């Protein structure tokens, strides 16, 4: 299984990629939403998971979620926002746009794993 990690911070991409790799995912990285869309076009298979920051230059995470949800070829991809945006209204916006889950920074690796387990992508600490 493959995970797409989208964040403009290299440090945050590294942290999220490390968690995903420990769970057994192959990881592809992108620095903003547009770069992520470009990566998706290049890949031969659609990643099962995308971990998406909200505030990014060029194309933000919410715009990326909306763009992906408009394209049926990505309908199987699970979208998880990982962001500092913690207000209820923002969470509702992200979920309404098509995100499946929402993790607020700062997070622990366990918080990511728990959310992925709820989504059925992880069981007993490894991707399924």
């Amino acid at each position, binding site marked *: 299984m493959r995970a797409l990690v989208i964040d403009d911070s290299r*440090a945050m991409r590294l942290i999220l990629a*490390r968690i995903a790799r420990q769970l057994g995912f192959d990881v592809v990285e992108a620095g903003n939403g547009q770069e992520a869309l470009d990566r998706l076009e290049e890949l031969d298979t659609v990643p099962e998971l995308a971990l998406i920051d909200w*505030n990014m230059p060029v194309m933000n995470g919410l715009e990326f979620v909306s763009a992906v949800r408009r394209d049926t070829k990505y309908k199987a991809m699970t979208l998880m926002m990982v962001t*500092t945006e913690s207000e209820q209204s923002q969470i509702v916006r992200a979920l309404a746009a098509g995100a499946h889950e929402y993790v607020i920074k*700062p997070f622990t690796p366990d918080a990511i794993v728990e959310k992925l387990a709820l989504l059925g992508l992880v069981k007993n600490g490894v991707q399924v």
Partner: protein
Amino acid sequence: MTVQHKPNTEELVSIAEMVWSSYLDPDGVRPLVVDPAPGWGLGPTDVVATVAISGAWDGRVLLSFSPPAARRASAALLAIAEVDDVGEGDVADAVGELANIIGGSVKSLMPQPTVLSLPAVHTGAFPDLGGEVCRVTGTWDGEPVSVAVHEVAVYVGVSRTGETSQ
């Protein structure tokens, strides 16, 4: 009259400690040591990362590190084994992201709606913003660090290259 909540020092300490324990000290061996009356002041070579909050409340969150602390934080976040291998770009990325996370937590305490800016990172003397709401000072790994929240009526933009605009 509406009384707006402003973050206090206790809340800011809690936010800073949560960020430290999540990213800079996950093993609990190098905690942030809060010192309300430090015997030092941040200097002209310090690294300052800022994010602006704008909307129902306008302000700015500043995260300041001494140069050694900035490099150590960047090494910790980017998993760079040798601190000497940390470059300026690494510091800008890592310290900026820490300010982004702290800023997001401060934003969540404020009246809504507000928008958080992307982080800007600056090295050297930083303009006095005034309007300080609260500040956490302390040390990490023996080096000075500080987190401050300012209420700022006029937007002050600082680019990654250090140019200031209003």
